[in-house]
Every structure is written in C-alpha cells, then in structure tokens.
C-alpha cells in the first residue's frame, strides 16, 4: 500500500459526503415546502407557538461554535496547540449548550401537549399537526447530527492533545470542522423556517 497522504483528496471525499447530508435534509425541506403551500396559515399559527428567544440563542451559540472551530483549524496550521484545544473545546461546549436548550424547548412543548400523536395535535387543525410533525422530525434529526458532530470534534480534540493531529496532518480535524459547519448551516435554514415563519 502506498502511504499516500493526499489531503485534498480526503477533503474531496468529505465534500461529497456533506453533499449527501444536504440531500438527506433536502428531502425533508421538500416536504416542508409542499405542506407550507398547502397549509400556510396553519404554519404561521404554529410558528407563533415556538419561542423565538430559544431559537435566537441557539442560532448565536452555533455561530459562535462554528467560529471557534474554524479558529481552531487555523490554530492547528499555525502550530498553536493551546489555541486549537481551546477552540475545539469551546465548540464542544456550545454544542452541549445547544442540546440542553433544545431539551428544555422540547420538554416545554411536550408538557403543553404538543408532540406527535398527541390528542391536541390529532384533534386540532391538520396543518398544525404537519407543522409540528416536521418540527420534531427535522430538529430531531438535526439534534442527532449535532451529537455526531460533537463526537467528531471530541475525537479531534483528543488527537490534537496527543499530537496525532499536527500542522502537517490535520485532515481529520479539518473534515470534522467541515461537518460541524454543515450542521450549523442546516440550522441556519431550520431557524427561519420554523421560528420566523410569517
């Protein structure tokens, strides 16, 4: 086996993978688009029930995390290990805060009787059932992606610490970073579609 370390090849593979992730969410966004046309007023009513503050805070948190992860990658290239570790750790922490936020948001909704198959949704207007159905499915899937992204960031963090990721071989950290940015980017679309729908 030739020990090729073709960094840009690895990045190409990662971009292809990210592309499949976009299509994965794309299927759900197609559903959203179709149902939005059909039940526009119900979607607007549903959007009013979501807490914009939660959404805004989570958006800011994810933007900060993306910045710090990007900074960490640059730090690795500049051989500033401490900076890199701090950046990745901040990213991880932000991810955690996001999930905690999401947990409170979901449990608040569930407490007020809004969850898939709940009486309130089943007996209420059908458009709202679809709106909240999509809300749970899309944010749930996004949450799973946050967890995967955090796992990748954590692995990168450990490898930077142990010296397996250096300024010469950092494609794992860079690809984890790319994944994290994608997860962030998807949220940037989810946020207006659900919280700011008018």
């Amino acid at each position: 086996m030739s020990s090729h370390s073709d960094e840009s090849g690895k990045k190409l593979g990662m971009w292809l993978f990210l592309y499949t992730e976009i299509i994965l969410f794309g299927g759900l966004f197609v559903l959203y688009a179709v149902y939005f046309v059909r039940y526009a007023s119900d979607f607007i009513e549903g959007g009013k029930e979501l807490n914009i503050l939660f959404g805004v805070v989570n958006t800011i948190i994810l933007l900060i995390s993306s910045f710090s992860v990007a900074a960490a990658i640059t730090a690795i290239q500049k051989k500033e290990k401490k900076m890199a570790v701090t950046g990745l750790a901040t990213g991880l922490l932000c991810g955690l805060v996001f999930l905690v936020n999401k947990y409170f948001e979901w449990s608040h909704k569930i407490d007020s009787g809004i969850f898939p198959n709940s009486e309130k949704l089943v007996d209420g207007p059908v458009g709202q059932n679809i709106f909240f159905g999509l809300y749970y499915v899309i944010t749930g899937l996004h949450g799973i992606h946050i967890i995967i992204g955090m796992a990748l960031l954590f692995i990168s963090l450990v490898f930077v610490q142990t010296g397996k990721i250096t300024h010469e071989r950092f494609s794992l950290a860079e690809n984890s970073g790319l994944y994290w940015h994608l997860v962030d980017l998807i949220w940037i679309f989810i946020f207006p579609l659900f919280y700011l729908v008018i």
Partner: protein
Amino acid sequence: METVKSFFETPSPARFKGIWSWLLTTDHKRIGLMYLFSILFWFLLAVLLGGVIRLELMFQGETFISAEVYNSLFTLHGVIMIFLFIIPALPAVFGNFFLPMQIGTDDVFFPKLNLLSWYLYMAGGIIAIISLFSDGFPDTGWTFYVPFSISTHTNVSTAVFAAFVLGIASMLTGLNFITTIHRMRKKQMGWMQIPLFTWSLYATSWVQLLATPVVSITLLLVIIERYVGVGLFDPSRGGDPILYQHLFWMYSHPAVYIMILPGMGVISEIIPVFSRKSIFGYKAIVASSMAIAIAGSLVWAHHMYTSGMSDTAIFVFSLLTFVVAIPSAIKVFSWVATLYKGSIQMTPPLFLALCFIYLFSVGGLTGLVLGAAGTDIYVHDTHFVVAHFHFTMFGGTGFAFFAALHYWWPKMFGRMYDFKKAYIGAILLTGGFMFHYVPMFILGLQGMPRRYFDYLPQYAKGNFFAGFGAAFMIIGIFLMVINLLITLRKPMDAKADPWGGTTLEWQTPSPPPLHNFVTEPCVLDYPYDFTGVVKKYSKNTKGE
C-alpha cells in the same frame, strides 16, 4: 512474471492470517471477491424465490403456498434482487476489483471505508433475514408504499431499516469511487483515456450520491411513522401519501440507472475486445453515460401517471422519459457499429453481451410504451410492467453481470472455465428468459395485474407457459455458476491476457499481485487501440 505472488497469497494488511486476512482486509480485490460471493448467494436465493412464485402462478388458485406467503415472497424477491443484488452487483464486485486496475493504481482512495461498506452491506442483508423471523416478512412489495406499509402488521420497520443500511453502503461506495477516479488515476491518463467501464462507474457513483439520501430519509420517515405516528403521509392528519411516492421514486428511478449504467460499461468493454476493433464513438458513449445520469434523475414521476398528477406534470415527465431513451439508444448503436466489420471472436462473454443488446433493446423499447402516458394508463401495474423491467434489469444488468463474470473470471481467479458448458448455460438462460417473459407481455396487454396471487381463467395458458421458461432459466443460471465455481479446484494457469484486451488490467498476471502491477502499466493514447493486439495475434498464428 510467473514467480510473482498473487494477492491470494499476500494478505493485506500483512499481519492477518486465515479468515481474518479476508474479514479485515483493505485490499480492494479481496473486498471485491467477498462481495462477489455474498452477492451470488443472495442472487441464487432470490432466483429460487422467483421460481417458487412462478410455480405457484402456473395453476389457478392456491397451488402450494398461501396468499400471505405469496405476498411476502414477491416482496422478498424484490427487496433482495434490488437492494442486495442489482444495485451492488456490478459496482461492488467488478468496480471494486477492476476500477483501480483500469486506472493503473493499487487500491481505492479510502480502503477502510471500502471495507466498512462491505460490512454495512452484510449488516443490511442480515437485518433483512432477521425481519423474516420476527412477525413475518413485509407484504408490501419492494416499494413500501404508504399507507399500507404504515398500517400492515408485518415487520416493515426492520426490512425498511435494512434497505436504509444498504443505501448507506452503496452511497459510500459511490463516494469512494468518485474520489478514486479524481485523485488516483495514473498521471498519463486524461479524462478521455479512461476505460468505458470506469467511466460508467463514475456516472453511476454520481447518481448514487445524488439520489440515495432521498430514499434514506423517506425510509426513515416510514419507520418514524410506524413507531411515533406523526402523520406526514396520512391524509386524515393533513399528510399526503402521493408525496411518499414522489420521494420514493426520486431515488428509485435514478436507481434503475445505478443498476444499468455499469452494465452498459461492461458491454462497452467486451464488444471491442472480441471485435478486435476500437469502440465506435468513445466520446459519445461517455457523454451518453453522463446524459443518462443527469436526465435519468428527472423522470421519476413516470411511475405515477395513475396516482394523480396534473396533466402538465404528466406531459413533462413523459417528454423527459423519451429524452432518456436517446442516450441509451446511442450506446446500442455504438455497440452494433463496433461489431460491424470487426473480426469477431465468439466467446461466452461476447455471447452474453450480444444477448444483452437484444434483451435490453426490447426492454428499452417497451419502456417507451410505459413512458408514454397514453399507453401507460392501460398497462400500468400489469404484467406488462413486470416483463418490461425484467427485460431491462435482468436481461440488461443480470446478463451484463454474467458477461462480466465470464470476461473477468480468468483475471480474478487465474483459471479458465469450460466454454461449452458456459454456452449451454447461456443458451438455456436466454431461451428460458424469452419463454418466461414474453408471455408476460401478452398477459399484461390482456390486463392481468401484477402482484396478484390468483387470476381469471383466460390468463391460465400464459402463466402455465411462463413457468416452463422459469425452469429453463434457473437450470441455465445454475449450470453457468457451477461451471465457473468448479474451476476453483483447478490449478491457476490462465494467461495474463487470455482475450487480447487493451485496458490496463490485462497488463498484469492473472490473478494480479497485491499491488496490482508488476511493472508500471503503460497507458495507451487511446484506450481501445487494438493495433498491438492484432499484431501479436497474427504473429502467433504465423508462428504455429
């Protein structure tokens, strides 16, 4: 050259021995062979299931299985054939083995990911088996249409999850191939010097990446609906079942091009080699592969003319479907034009390739009957459809698979098989095929629906005849496979280039060594330049 150790004797990584040298290998050739044997297993199993279905249909009423078992059987036949055989067959077996060799490199770009894909493939297969033994296998057909797939009591979730896992495996293979083709080609090999099989895999891989995630999310939604009951496809809760069909076919129609494109690539390799003549219209074939990949992604709704769509949509999708026929026909034309005035050497792979051209053409033309909305309304969901897609999928991809198997078998295992038995098997298969599926065209035109357990008396004769065809086909398939498998007991004595091929995989011993090439392969300016081969062969005949 004879002293070189083949990849069978040199495990990679070198520290593993015995069974582990296979199960933990990162060698693309070993992974390809592991795929080959697992895929053959599934294929033969599904062939036998299909045989049982036809046997049941030979006589009216319940012959020897109940209607419920019948429903599960055709679902199982479909799921195995689609997800475990046709989609992975050519890319995962021959793509893995020969793509790196055709571009003159020693492995795929992500060898470990390649092994992971194989494990995902096996996991998908095992999950499918598990669903058999818990609550019964689904009776939905391989399309898993809602609302039935959500309300039926059988174990749809597990089967759907199996398809989801298999989808990931196929996606990762596609990702791996694209990266390999971009980054690991020999420097001298430009885009217009890539062999056509590799080109077809490149087009296929893009479709795999483009389309598979859509079905992944759709299948996930079916599982979520079954467990949580969101109601996204349930009309009483505001959902729309037609949307499921759109999402499903957005993948599953491009998927038929995932199935057929590599098959076309195989035929484009075989025809010039045995005509001793460079392929007609290399660039046209390349362009048509890409055109099929692109246009094929835009025709999904032609499966849904009767489901309820606007007339405009039906018109557009019908038109696009006709557009896809053009690049397919260009390929058929190129193959036939390559044969014209070539010095044809008849061998089992060429025989199978010729059968492919005929059967695929019939399949393609009957596809237009279905693609035209006017005629489709009459034959939709009849046996006509069954016959059509078996002509393209089995007569197309299935025959290409067997052609590839006979073409590359000496390279993969270093052993030549008995031509006579291969011919007899292929003739039985093709004859049985015609006997089997042509009656179905007629039955379909007469109005016999697909997937029905029982039928009216006027359909008895056609179904009775089709049963005999099925028997011939099964005998032919087993004869061919056994003929190949018994060579494994013989010594490895096949020549490096038994056919006179020009692509790089023939420049190395059979079977190839671990790093594929003994000396650096030399890239021809034009991949199908046969002047050297013709010279070599004419010298041989003069000398003898």
